[in-house]
């Protein structure tokens, strides 16, 4: 077996994982249909989707736990599943970290970490090294899984998965079972470990902020197919359709008319993102993010003694949720139109019932009319 061959070349390495036309049904329900996915080498690709969209099924097919009904799976250049070929899971050498870690309950943390190594290398010293590699104290090596916290269990599971040096690591919602306090710190630690190890990673998650903050690329999955694969910022700014837009973050969708590279809506003219080549003309839907909508208090606008520019669109604050660092605001335009939600910093939060003026910063994205 020639492993790690994908990393040899200086120029554009082969993708870590290529999936073509993958199909899988359970009984009469088709879970995956003609799924295509290319995951880059040496980075984190997040597989983002609502629960039940087939993420875990895809992961299990890639790991080799289940057999696809058709299609093709390649690791680097090597096909592991294709016409007349199916490499069993134990010879695919992928690292797999399931949701709750699934440490073997009858083995200590140390024994878990070295489980996948050949017998001669299953030594206590190796176990301690592996645990140290994921930032765990050596004294934990003798503990059993039930004596570890959730975050520690996840790290041991990661150490175990990384020990045989797999070229590809699969993480199946590894942080969802952790409590909020442990989640963020464990995420950061795991990301740092993965970057140091230099493995390619597929991270399955239904949490958009996790996907956007951790991944180099995000593949959005819906109803058994990948609908968009893009870098986090591009995905957030230019989603392919309103569904993806709403899934990766809060979205404000407004009816608008397109005039060249400018969309006119109830909030006034908004320039379009030049990167997204919008082909639609006439009646469209304009996507803005709540943090793009800027709220100015009425008094300030009045004090400015009729500025020559646009004073903004008048609106009334109909509701708000104060989170401390920031604040979600619901607004009703004075001259009718759809309700609008905005996000401001916590320090400049308006009060419910206030009269305010709205302006838009940045560019927007448009979709064809429904």
């Amino acid at each position, binding site marked *: 077996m020639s492993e790690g061959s994908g990393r040899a070349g200086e120029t554009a390495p082969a993708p870590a994982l290529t999936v073509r036309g993958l199909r899988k049904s359970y009984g009469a329900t088709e879970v995956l249909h003609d799924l295509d996915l290319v995951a880059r080498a040496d980075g984190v690709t997040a597989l983002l989707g609502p629960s039940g969209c087939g993420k875990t099924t895809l992961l299990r097919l890639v790991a080799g736990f289940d057999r696809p009904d058709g299609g093709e799976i390649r690791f680097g250049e090597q096909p592991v599943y294709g016409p007349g070929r199916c490499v*069993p899971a*134990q010879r695919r050498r992928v*690292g797999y970290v399931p949701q709750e870690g699934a440490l073997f*309950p*009858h083995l200590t943390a140390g024994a878990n970490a070295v*489980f*996948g190594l050949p017998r001669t290398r299953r030594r206590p010293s190796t176990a301690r090294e592996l645990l140290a590699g994921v930032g765990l104290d050596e004294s934990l090596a003798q503990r059993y899984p039930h004596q570890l916290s959730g975050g520690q269990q996840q790290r041991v599971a990661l150490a175990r998965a990384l020990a*045989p040096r797999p070229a590809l690591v699969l993480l199946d919602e590894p942080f969802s079972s952790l409590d909020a306090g442990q989640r963020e710190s464990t995420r950061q630690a795991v990301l740092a470990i993965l970057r140091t190890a230099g493995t390619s990673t597929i991270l399955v998650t239904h949490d958009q902020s996790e996907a956007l903050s951790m991944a180099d690329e995000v593949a959005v999955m819906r109803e058994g197919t990948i609908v968009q694969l893009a870098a986090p910022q591009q995905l957030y700014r230019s989603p392919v359709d309103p569904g993806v837009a709403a899934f990766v973050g809060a979205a404000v969708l407004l009816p608008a008319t397109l005039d060249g590279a400018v969309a006119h809506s109830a909030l006034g003219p908004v320039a379009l993102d030049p990167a997204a080549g919008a082909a639609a003309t006439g009646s469209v839907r304009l996507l803005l993010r709540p943090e793009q909508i800027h709220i100015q208090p009425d008094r300030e606008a009045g004090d400015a003694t009729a500025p020559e520019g646009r004073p903004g669109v008048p609106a009334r604050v109909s509701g708000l949720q104060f989170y401390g660092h920031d604040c979600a605001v619901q607004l009703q335009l004075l001259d009718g139109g759809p309700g609008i939600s905005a996000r401001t910093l916590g320090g400049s939060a308006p009060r419910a019932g206030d009269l305010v003026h709205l302006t838009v910063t940045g560019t927007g994205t448009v979709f064809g009319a429904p």
Partner: protein
Amino acid sequence: MVAAAVVVALFALIPLFFVIGYTIDLGWAQTSELVFRARVGELLWNTLRLTLGCMALSAVLGTGAAWLVERTTIPLRKLWTVLLVAPLAIPAFVNGYAWISVTRTVDGYWGALLVTTLSYFPLVYLPVVAALRGLDPALEESARSLGLSSQAVFGRVLLPQLRIALYGGVLLVGVHMLAEFGALQLLRFPTFTTAIYDQFRSSFNGPAANVLAGVLAAVCLVFLLAELGLRGGARYGRLGSGAARSVTRIELGRWHWPALGGLALLSTLALLVPLGALLRWLLAGRSTAFPWASLARTAATTVGLAAVAAVVAVALALALGWLSERYGSRLGALLERGTYFGSAMPGIVVALALITVSIRLVPGLYQSAPLLILGYAILFLPRAVINVRSALSQARPLYDDVARSLGTPTLQRLRRVTLPLMAGGLGAGAALVVLAVATELTATLLLAPTGTQTLATAFWGLSSSLQYGAAAPYAALMIAISAPATYLLTRQAGRSLTP
């Protein structure tokens, strides 16, 4: 695998098929003639009044003792917990022997009621204690904050929540009582089991014994259906997450000494009397002799039979458990219920069924060790099934997947992951079967090959011919063997009934 599981369940249901088949075979006229007799009415009355009396008394003693230990400031709580479960380690027929050898006055209804209650009240005590431990103390606290007295808290808050555990325990006592034979025979109180046995001894495999067994099985079915309905209707355990919080115990005040005295009396009657009697016979009895050779031979026979029965039962349970755990199929659950029904039949019914069926179908099997083993397997399959089930759920498929992703080949996965994960459950299941077989009397008496003696049948032979001293060493050995089983059962009850 599925076919194997179906066969297992069918085997377990032999007693039931036997009862139905035999009745049909005999024809209605003859059956009714045998059933509707004054003798049967008398036996039914005896069996029911003893069973119901024992159930009621066990409910009061078990619940009362559990409440005292778990909810009041009674001292020595750890000691009481042990002492109140320990009677389970003394087989009821040994208890009966101990009492009758001390005083002749315990025969008849009241004697039988006393001895059987002392043997079986822990079956109520255990689940009620487990349920009490699982209850959220906040419920009692809020009741008290609403102004309820201690009695009112018990009656209006605790008792309704303990209902399921209590009913379950009481019905278990009922099922045990219907199957009880040895103690009642020794205490000379005629019920169905003793009548069937006498009938069988006098007119081997006659229709009278079989029809009596049929009536007993029918009564037993009523109890089982009640138990099943109870379990289906409400969830067991998991009553709250307040187990970690400690409860405020009720001050007993002037009831301190009476309560302590009550528990002491109960423990004395249930433990000290039988153990004391046994010790007296062991040390001072004139007929006591230590026939080491025959003692060792009997013990070896018992352990050998028990070990084979345990292996068979665990293997059968694996087939069933694997089916319902890995596939969660309705078929699996149904088959499991089936084995449960078969095994809850009294040992004497199971034995009669196997004798009748084997004589008709495979005469060579009659009075052979395999038939005895099959009887044991049918009777004690649920003990194995419960443990095998938990073993299988320990070895979740996910662990196998993880090991595969780490490159471990199939056989290595079995050795390094699956077997270690299942070892505990399989071992516990096998141990429980071994220990149950070691003290089984009724079915062994009927099914054992001529000349084969287990501890229980050797004890029985001696004690029923009034050689109390000679019987004592066998009884002591049985108690020594069943003590660990009692401990295991205690732990299991605690695990399944508390969060």
